[in-house]
């Protein structure tokens, strides 16, 4: 796992491609499972998980508990479902040439 990268001599920082996939985080924000590729930095996954959990907790505090949130960014859609204090998060990159929905 990642052994070959030890021998890689490249110094070029690769552009981070936004993957489609999902991951789960526990109530502490620890990543439990992920279908995202290794090339997607774990920091990013942790950040997304942490913000999503914070959003769920803030909603609870505001007396508006949420079971699901959908974030619409210009180039990414994120769907997160609450899972017993943790969350399952789906990442769906958006492109300009999306097929039109009927």
């Amino acid at each position: 796992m990642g052994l070959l990268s030890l021998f890689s001599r490249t110094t070029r920082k690769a552009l981070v491609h936004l993957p489609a996939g999902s991951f789960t985080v526990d109530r502490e924000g620890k990543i439990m499972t992920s279908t995202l590729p290794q090339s997607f930095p774990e920091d990013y996954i942790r950040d997304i998980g942490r913000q999503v959990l914070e959003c769920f907790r803030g909603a609870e505090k505001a007396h508006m508990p949420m079971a699901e949130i959908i974030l619409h960014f210009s180039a990414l859609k994120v769907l997160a479902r609450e899972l017993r204090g943790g969350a399952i998060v789906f990442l769906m990159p958006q492109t300009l040439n999306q097929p039109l929905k009927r």
Partner: protein
Amino acid sequence: MAGSPRILLLDDDAAFLELYKEMLGKHLTSMPEVKTTTSAPRALSMLEAEPYNLLIVDLNMPKMDGLQILTIARRKYPHLRLVVLTGVRDEQFRTRAYAMGVDQFWIKPESDQEIGLFMESIESLLSREAQGGFRGVQSKSLVDIIQLECLSQNSCVLKISNGLIDGKIWIQTGEVIDAEAADLMAEPAFQRILGWKTGSFEILPPDPERPRTITTSYQGLLLNTAQAFDEAASQLPASAEAEQGKATFALAEIAQWPGVECVLSLRGKNAKDYYGLEDAAPVAEWLRDTLNNFQILADRLQVGQLQQVIGAGPRRKVALAAFGDAKLCIGFGPAVTAEQLKETFKNILTKWVS
């Protein structure tokens, strides 16, 4: 920025820089002054030190990639034109670059014809800048632009966006012939568009097939719109208390939309107006934190603006959005379907932004 336009070209390939410096500097009619660098941090310090009209940037670079540069440049220099010139053929990066506000995205030209098109597009960007061109209504009002187009007997389509809604005004040989904005058509749409205080627009090629729905002259249209604004302004309450009352009234109006249970809007740092909420303070805090935190996440992930957040819970569904300094939270009943929520929220945003 007087004199010849200035271009900063950033790419990690020194030979490529040399070639394009010569091409841009010698073959464009505007004779721009072209500076180059192979390092992204150096490019940022050059932008800091001197004003530039245009930044041309590669995406795939060591240490700091092009998307990071674009994020910083767009935030720090909103008037700087941005062009991506890259070998990365990936639809996702094109989408993300446009989401960050670049003006053009080019795959590195491979033929004489492509080089010609690239040079033309750069010339066009620079000449718009030289003519005192605009990105939006901050520097020229929409009325100015319409008058300009009509007085010069031009034919074009003005596509105007206030960030959330798009509108179009059709101009045919100096006359406004049609307009549309969200659910409005013809003159009401024209008045709605002119009511937008900020935004951006582009001039599209004319559409001679468009049927004429507006017969009033452009002077008459502008006069009618100005009168409508004057009347609305004269009815505006003057005091802060009355202003608050007006905002609450507007929110109460929003609350009349089907399925809407409560509304909260935040203006600036502290001002909040709400309707249908018993304790608005924790909701306001959640709204502010959620939109701010997710926008920070958007910058980190380089995915453009956070457009909206939709939430669903056992007791309520919510929709959140930000527009400039203002933030809006609408609470819906749990029975509202996702499709109804989406449609209603879109209509409410149209009204709220206007």
